[in-house]
């Protein structure tokens, strides 16, 4: 049995409360706010899964849209013949395998190769899927009709978020997590103490990719009609990177600090100024690089550090005055 210390028990209790509160949202509203909550929950899972890999390794992965699309397609292709839970499993396997292949090809080399490779990955998979569909199925689109309503999708996403958080927590405590922290701090050191750096990175990338695939699968019933350009929409990859970096990648829950404000902002902007969304993305990227290099989380930590620094000094001054 895994033992938790006092602090961890407290965090777990707060997390349970928050999850409970979130899970009751569909009981209050089934319209706009639920739809917004589904978006937030979706990006929360995507960003947390992204951070699982990119946080410790500092590799910027733009493969999210590829895994997401594969998940959506697994459901689109199998919904008429196989039960939904099995399709989620297939989605996880398919995107996990893709992540493994990409990882083996690129993660032995420097981070730049990885960024470039993932930059076009969604587009590549989209081209291949379109070609296969035209060639063997004759049509490009797929219909996904299920009994799942928006609220069921929301609850599934929440459950998945919980699984991602627990996985992240377990990985952190494991040998793999320890190895990743050493790799993140100094890769040369990691190699010298006998860590198989490439293997550790590939494993983590597979875990992260599989979760993103499941998210895509859960969202498939919401689209109702699945076709390559919407399933493999490259903007998702960039949005995930932005939100995660905006929140911060130092902790597993830090991306949430970016996901919630950015999703709401993006929703507002795309509702009233649909042509300004790329400007918003661009400006946010710039703001992160120049003003928030460690995200909102880093900002909080800086403020706390400053407080901690001033307090003993103030106490010292008070003592000297006495």
């Amino acid at each position, binding site marked *: 049995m895994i033992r938790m210390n006092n602090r961890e028990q407290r965090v777990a209790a707060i997390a349970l409360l928050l999850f409970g509160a979130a899970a009751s949202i569909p009981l209050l509203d089934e319209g706009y706010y639920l739809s917004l909550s589904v978006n937030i929950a979706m990006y929360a899972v995507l960003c947390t899964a992204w951070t699982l890999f990119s946080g410790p390794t500092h590799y910027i992965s733009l493969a999210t849209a590829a895994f997401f699309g594969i998940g959506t397609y697994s459901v689109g292709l199998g919904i008429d013949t196989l039960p939904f839970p099995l399709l989620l499993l297939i989605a996880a396997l398919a995107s996990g395998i893709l992540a493994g292949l990409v990882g083996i090809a690129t993660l032995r080399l420097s981070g730049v190769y990885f960024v470039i490779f993932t930059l076009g990955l969604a587009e590549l998979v989209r081209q*291949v899927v379109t*070609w296969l569909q035209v060639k063997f199925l004759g049509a490009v689109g797929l219909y996904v009709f299920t009994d799942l309503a928006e609220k069921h999708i929301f609850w599934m996403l929440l459950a998945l978020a919980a699984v991602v958080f627990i996985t992240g927590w377990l990985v952190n405590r494991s040998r793999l997590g320890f190895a990743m922290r050493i790799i993140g701090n100094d890769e040369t050191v990691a190699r010298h103490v006998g860590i198989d750096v490439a293997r550790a990175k590939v494993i983590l990338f597979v875990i992260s990719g599989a979760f993103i695939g499941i998210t895509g699968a859960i969202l498939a019933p919401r689209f109702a009609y699945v076709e390559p350009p919407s399933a493999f929409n490259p903007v998702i990859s960039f949005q995930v990177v932005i939100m995660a970096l905006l929140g911060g990648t130092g902790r597993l829950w830090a991306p949430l600090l970016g996901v919630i404000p950015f999703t709401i902002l993006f929703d507002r902007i795309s509702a009233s100024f649909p042509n*300004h969304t790329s400007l918003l993305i661009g400006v*946010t990227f710039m703001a992160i690089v120049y003003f928030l290099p460690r995200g909102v989380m880093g900002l909080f930590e800086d403020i706390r550090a400053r407080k901690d620094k001033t307090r003993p000094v103030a106490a010292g001054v008070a003592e000297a005055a006495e």
Partner: protein
Amino acid sequence: MDILITGTVLGGTYALIALGLTLQYGVARIMNLANGENLVLACFCAFWLYTAASINPIIGIALIAPVAFVLNWAIYAYAMKPLVDRAKNRGQLEIDSILATFGLMFIMQGVMLLVFGGEYFSYNFLSEPVRILGENYGLNRIVALGAAVVIAVALYVFLYRTRYGTAVRAVSVSPSSASLVAIDVPRMSAFAFALGGALTAAGGALLSTFYTFNASMGVIFTMKALIIVIMGGVGDVRGAVLAALLLGLAETAVASLIDPGLTLAATYTLFILVLLFRPQGIFGRQTA
């Protein structure tokens, strides 16, 4: 034969974009992901010059390239220099520059979308056919290839036969050693970044004479240029040209023999082969 010529023309244009990028990444150490937007902007400028002022795009390059040079110098001086000064090591600079140029990419794309909308643009320039070995080709493509060759040769002569060009190459090999022999590294970096931008813009102006373009296609070109740079070896001019031609040929072959929708698959197949067997580039030397 058709594949060979069409592929070479495409490869020639890719070569200019990739040369621009290899200068920016190899010398200035900035992975400029907004380079494709730079290219698209040049396409629009050439279009605008031709339709509004009826200036021949080939002559238009003489206007567009210097403007792109100044613009990219400004981008380097105001946006990238702070990152270079801030970065503790090369990895940090790489991540920062990737994110910052992503921002630049989306901003440029957003502005172009607002100004020109999402439609496709093209114009008729020298679209009469010429016969080469019994097949018909657009004269604009052949002219574009010729101009690309002239520009690439000029760049080669500059880099390998002049003092200034040698200094640029020295920075690409080792910035710290270059400063020991009295080369002004920050100035050279800014110069290389600006020159890279100008080359890419020239490539864009040429591309616009025979290619249908729109405001959001930049990222595909950025990606192909990046892959060419990696294939050719970072900072290697000959490697980039060879890789660009290879890619142009492979894409044209796949598009005409299998399916036009699979060009990216061809690109990636080449990319994976290079990553697996020669990650240091086609002409690159093995490093430890």
